[in-house]
């Protein structure tokens, strides 16, 4: 049976902040753009992020998640992007064909360029291997957020939160407002993972205790969570003997990290970076597959949606240029960009020396006070950034100036 095939200049997979911004930007560059999202509504995870703090960088004002999403949906629509919801891309071929599925319909979309903007998923109980029984009442923080803010479902009455990521902190306050008791937030690292403002307005305001250097070592309960065992961890990551105590609760939320969702990319043969778990990209955000670009949380986990959208904006413009410029030659990026001492990862991982200025996004490995980040190519310093304080929870950006000589770039904390 032959399937209908249509052709577009640029297809964007995923209608969150990065995908919407990429689609709008590609359309403004003159490309014929199709954005595909599996959900009934556009905006991605922003729709359940009803708290404020979005938009300061992108719009100079403080917006809630849904308002921030609405701005991008409008600008994509105004730019002429075709927005297709309820549609799941089940496969991306190395030739950039998208196999799309929606109820009662299957079609192939042939693309000159494809932008991957599928976002990320939360780490689950299975991924962090908490021992114990398997009762109901264990949720990832984002699932709890969906159930509370979209589903109007009460998830529990006595809640322990493992992990101090921002979603967990926001949910601590949210559940408190919904009448639940939030017993504690438990963080295995000696410092919080979320933004300091969320520690202040979500935990301190409501006297919710934060246990640093602690983790949940066992879940107890039959049909429903009854309690969790918490223990202190030393610097080498071992349980401190005798430090265990139990907290009674009916619900455990996990806010223990996000993983880029790269199923489609992997199937298509996109090479992933072990550090980011996102694609390895050139400074054009193009992956190893010609014409396939990546941006937003599917490329690397961002701290703010504003930065994910801004990255989408740049990637979308590059994708449009690739799709509309006649016979794009395969550009071989000529230098590698690597993280060095004190730096966890750097994106992009490659750059063409002909592109003189390159914007790097990176994270440091450990918190510290004032520090200098330096990008070095051979003998030359090609970029430097002074930070008042460095924290792994914050994504930092540094612009480097490439020289004509071909030297790999290393980014380090000095």
């Amino acid at each position, binding site marked *: 049976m032959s399937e209908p095939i249509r052709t577009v200049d640029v297809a964007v997979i995923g209608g969150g902040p990065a995908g919407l911004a990429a689609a709008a930007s590609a359309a403004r560059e003159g490309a014929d753009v199709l954005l595909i999202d599996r959900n009934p509504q556009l905006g991605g995870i922003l729709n359940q992020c*009803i708290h404020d*703090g979005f938009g300061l960088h992108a719009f100079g004002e403080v917006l809630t998640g849904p308002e921030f999403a609405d701005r991008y949906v409008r600008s994509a629509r105004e730019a002429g992007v075709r927005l297709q919801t309820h549609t799941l891309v089940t496969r991306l071929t190395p030739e950039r064909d998208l196999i799309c599925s929606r109820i009662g319909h299957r079609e192939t979309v042939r693309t000159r360029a494809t932008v991957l903007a599928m976002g990320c998923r939360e780490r689950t109980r299975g991924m962090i291997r908490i021992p114990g029984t398997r009762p109901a009442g264990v949720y990832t923080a984002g699932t709890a957020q969906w159930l509370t803010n979209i589903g*109007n479902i009460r998830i529990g009455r006595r809640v322990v939160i493992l992990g101090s990521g921002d979603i967990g902190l926001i949910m601590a306050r949210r559940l408190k*407002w919904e009448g639940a008791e939030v017993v504690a937030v438990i963080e295995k690292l000696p410092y919080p993972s979320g933004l300091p*403002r969320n520690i202040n307005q979500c935990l301190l305001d409501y006297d919710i205790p934060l246990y640093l250097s602690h983790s949940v070592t066992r879940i107890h309960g039959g049909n429903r969570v009854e309690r969790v065992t918490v223990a202190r961890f030393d610097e080498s990551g071992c349980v401190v003997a005798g430090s265990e105590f139990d907290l009674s609760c009916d619900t455990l939320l996990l806010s223990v990290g996000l993983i880029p969702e790269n199923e489609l990319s992997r199937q298509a043969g996109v090479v992933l970076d072990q550090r980011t778990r996102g694609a390895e990209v050139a400074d054009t955000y193009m992956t190893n597959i010609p014409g396939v670009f990546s941006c937003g949380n599917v490329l690397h986990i961002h701290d703010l949606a504003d930065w994910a959208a801004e990255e989408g904006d740049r990637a979308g413009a590059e994708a449009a240029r690739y799709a509309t410029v006649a016979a794009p030659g395969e550009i071989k990026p000529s230098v590698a960009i690597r993280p060095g001492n004190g730096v966890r990862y750097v994106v992009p991982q490659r750059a063409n020396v002909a592109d003189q200025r390159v914007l790097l996004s990176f994270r440091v490995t450990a918190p510290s006070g004032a520090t200098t980040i330096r990008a070095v190519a051979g003998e030359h310093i090609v970029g430097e950034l002074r930070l008042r304080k460095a924290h792994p929870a914050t994504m930092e950006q540094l612009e480097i100036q490439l020289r004509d000589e071909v030297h790999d770039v290393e980014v380090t904390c000095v």
Partner: protein
Amino acid sequence: MNERTMTCILCPNGCELRVTWAEEPSPATVSVDGNLCPKGLTYAIDELTHPMRTLTTSVRVRDGIQRLASVKTTTAIPRDALPAVRSALRSIELRAPVAIGDVVLADAAGTGVDVVVTRAVSKRTNEAMT
């Protein structure tokens, strides 16, 4: 002199403020160190005298494609007023369609601040709820 450190919550920068003040905190006596912008001073004074917070929550919607519409106070309100506003919102049920900016509750709990919709909810037709 009194001294306190606090994290400014007005934006994601989350500046670590070192705040010093004399007897009674007021614009004349409070000084702030560590802020990236002038809002840091305003925040510190408010925090010492009457902490202000923006409320973001949701209210029920009848006949909509969603069960809830997210809402916010248009500006920050006294933190002490949050419970009264939340409780006033609990008794409200909107009717779809609602649009971003629709006023849900005017002068919420006497704060002089309105609560408005932050997410549009269109009217449900025959399709199932999502």
